């Protein structure tokens, strides 16, 4: 034995193990994505236009049909439409009111808005106002479907009972509490909440991701007098920017790897896209890599990431000298920050909103300032561009104090601590790949969490890969990220928090407003459709 263990042999074995370890690490370095990304990218089959040619569209502001009785009433028809998103290419869309994005709804804090939606699409729909402090019956629970004409008769679901998510990977799920309606449904939003940028989108059980992909998303702004009085850039110098990624098939349609292209019975996407669907075309307000002409003045940019799975790290690059220009963040998901925060780059996960101010007077007239995504590669690095065209008067300002009404909950106020893991797993009767919260896939008939109205709770979330976690009804404070202080972009009141691989966050929230059945879920829309939602009952 002793003879076998010569110095030379020990060195050889040790060297071989060292080489194996080094080789393994090299392989990991080569194979892994830098930076880490969750999802798989579709490649468009049509030629893509050069960037910064198409002007930035601004979604139309929807006009109310009535403003009497202290409520603004709106009507929207959900219908198919054809649009020219890429120059010379006609694309069929599912839309709110015929456009993508849908028309913007402008509202005032505390003044209720009722939107009556009429479903003329071939499938059931349900509208959720993301970030809205909304009673449960108007919150767009995924099985509270608005059925299209003839849905029950044609048997969209296998057994002809159109009562919601029956086809959860063959799970045969029932939701006895679902409230469905035929053709139309009126959603009432009290909007008793901080002014901010909300967005409305489809939230149909099992089919949210492809429905948003096809165009069912629009903006909803809440304002109040206090915010108006701040003097932030306004009017034509306030721009909503809804950023999405899409891919186009050879026939011009939006490409999406659905298992059931009609989106009627079988949910889910093809195996390679289980982690999320990414497109290779970046659209802002529905236009590919658009350009916008601006004055040499401050602009308020209200940015929403309405992509299904793509994360962005936004930066403004001065074309003149190639340098990254700083900007200010004045608001987050749930409204104004306490004071402005200066950034040079800013992460933006699906469903997150950032309220930014960029001062174009700090670059020479004639300069092009590009908004880029530092997490993108190739063409997905580009987002849009601003061309500074003229000198102009600017009366706007960014006050040092933006708001004083942010909640002052502290750790000690929490009456309960809850832990949730967000990770991959097996789900449904057939044990297919899915995404789980606390080890369980979504079941509308199961209450996962019961909270008491008025309670402050501490939630601790842990993720395996990227999971942008969204809580309905409430806003929250990010207390810690990865066991340390939160990052600069975690400031303010949030409703969606982006967990990176292996990361954890602690949130502090107060359950407030309304009782009833709500949701929390991952806002990677593919994860959301494949199990990563949970029920929350406010009692």
């Amino acid at each position, binding site marked *: 034995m002793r003879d076998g263990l010569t110095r030379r042999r020990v060195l050889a074995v040790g060297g071989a193990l060292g080489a194996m370890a080094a080789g393994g*690490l090299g392989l*990991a370095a080569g194979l*892994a994505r830098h930076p*880490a990304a969750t999802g798989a990218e579709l490649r468009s089959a049509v030629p893509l236009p050069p960037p910064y040619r198409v002007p930035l569209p601004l979604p139309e502001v929807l006009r109310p049909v009535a403003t009497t009785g202290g409520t603004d009433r709106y009507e929207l028809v959900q219908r198919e439409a054809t649009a020219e998103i890429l120059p010379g290419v006609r694309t069929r869309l599912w839309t709110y009111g015929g456009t993508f994005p849908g028309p913007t709804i402008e509202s005032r804090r505390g003044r209720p808005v009722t939107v009556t939606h009429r479903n003329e699409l071939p499938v059931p729909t349900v509208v959720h106002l993301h970030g809205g402090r909304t009673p449960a019956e108007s919150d767009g629970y995924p099985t509270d479907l608005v059925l299209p004409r003839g849905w029950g008769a044609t048997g969209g679901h296998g057994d002809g009972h159109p009562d919601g998510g029956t086809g959860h990977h063959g799970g045969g799920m029932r939701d006895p509490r679902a409230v469905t309606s035929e053709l139309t449904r009126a959603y009432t939003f009290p909007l008793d909440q901080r002014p901010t940028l909300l967005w409305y989108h489809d939230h149909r059980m099992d089919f949210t991701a492809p429905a948003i992909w096809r165009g069912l998303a629009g903006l909803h702004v809440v304002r109040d007098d206090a915010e108006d009085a701040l003097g932030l850039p306004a009017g034509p110098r306030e721009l909503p920017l809804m950023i999405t990624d899409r891919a186009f098939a050879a026939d011009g349609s939006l490409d999406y790897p659905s298992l059931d292209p009609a989106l009627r019975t079988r949910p889910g996407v093809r195996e390679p896209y289980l982690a999320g669907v990414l497109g290779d075309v970046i659209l802002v307000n529905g236009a590919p890599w658009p350009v916008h002409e601006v004055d040499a003045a401050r602009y308020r940019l209200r940015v929403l990431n309405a992509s299904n799975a793509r994360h962005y790290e936004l930066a403004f690059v001065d074309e003149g000298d190639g340098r990254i220009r700083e900007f200010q963040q004045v608001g987050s998901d749930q409204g104004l920050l306490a004071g402005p925060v200066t950034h040079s780059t800013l992460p933006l996960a699906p469903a997150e909103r950032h309220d930014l101010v960029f001062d174009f007077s700090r670059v020479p007239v004639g300069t092009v300032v590009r908004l880029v995504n530092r997490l993108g590669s190739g063409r997905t690095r580009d987002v849009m561009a601003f061309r500074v065209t003229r000198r102009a008067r600017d009366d706007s300002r960014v006050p040092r104090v933006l708001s004083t009404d942010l909640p002052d909950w502290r750790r000690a106020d929490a009456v309960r601590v809850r832990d949730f*893991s967000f990770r991959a797993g097996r789900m449904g009767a057939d044990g297919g790949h899915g995404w789980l919260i606390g*080890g369980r896939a979504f079941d509308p008939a199961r209450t996962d969490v019961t909270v008491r109205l008025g309670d402050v709770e501490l939630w601790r979330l*842990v993720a395996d890969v990227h999971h942008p976690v969204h809580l309905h009804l409430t806003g929250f404070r990010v207390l810690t990220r990865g*066991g340390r202080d939160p990052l600069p972009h975690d400031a303010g009141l949030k409703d969606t928090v982006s967990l990176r*691989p292996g990361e*954890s966050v602690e949130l502090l929230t107060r359950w407030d407003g309304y009782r009833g059945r709500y949701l929390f879920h991952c806002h990677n829309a593919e994860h959301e459709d494949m199990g990563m939602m949970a029920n929350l009952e406010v009692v």
Partner: protein
Amino acid sequence: MWAGAWRAAVTTHGVAVYGQPVFAGVYLSGDFDGLGMHATGADVVTSLCLVQLIVAVGVWVRLRRAWPFLVTLALAAAETVQYFAGTAGALWLHIPLGVFTVAAATLLFAAAWLRPLVRREAADA
């Protein structure tokens, strides 16, 4: 005395290293406290590696055996990289390097207990 200290240092260090994947598993199952355990464990492992390094210096000086020091130095380098890869969230590095570190600690444990450290005599050198 130094042979005994070497075995003790390698053993305690090895036990601490074995705790790390356990805490990581607890954490990724959704137990937030697992992260704190994993972080504390990282501090303990790094400290014990330093102790082992000091003992290895003693082994080198007193017993005239250099390999414990060289192996521990390599392990300390790996654990330092591992520490920063973990706090930076570079999982592509942190996970494989963690597995390799556990394997190295295992080999070292086996070597320490199967191969007695005897003082190298002048004639041997």
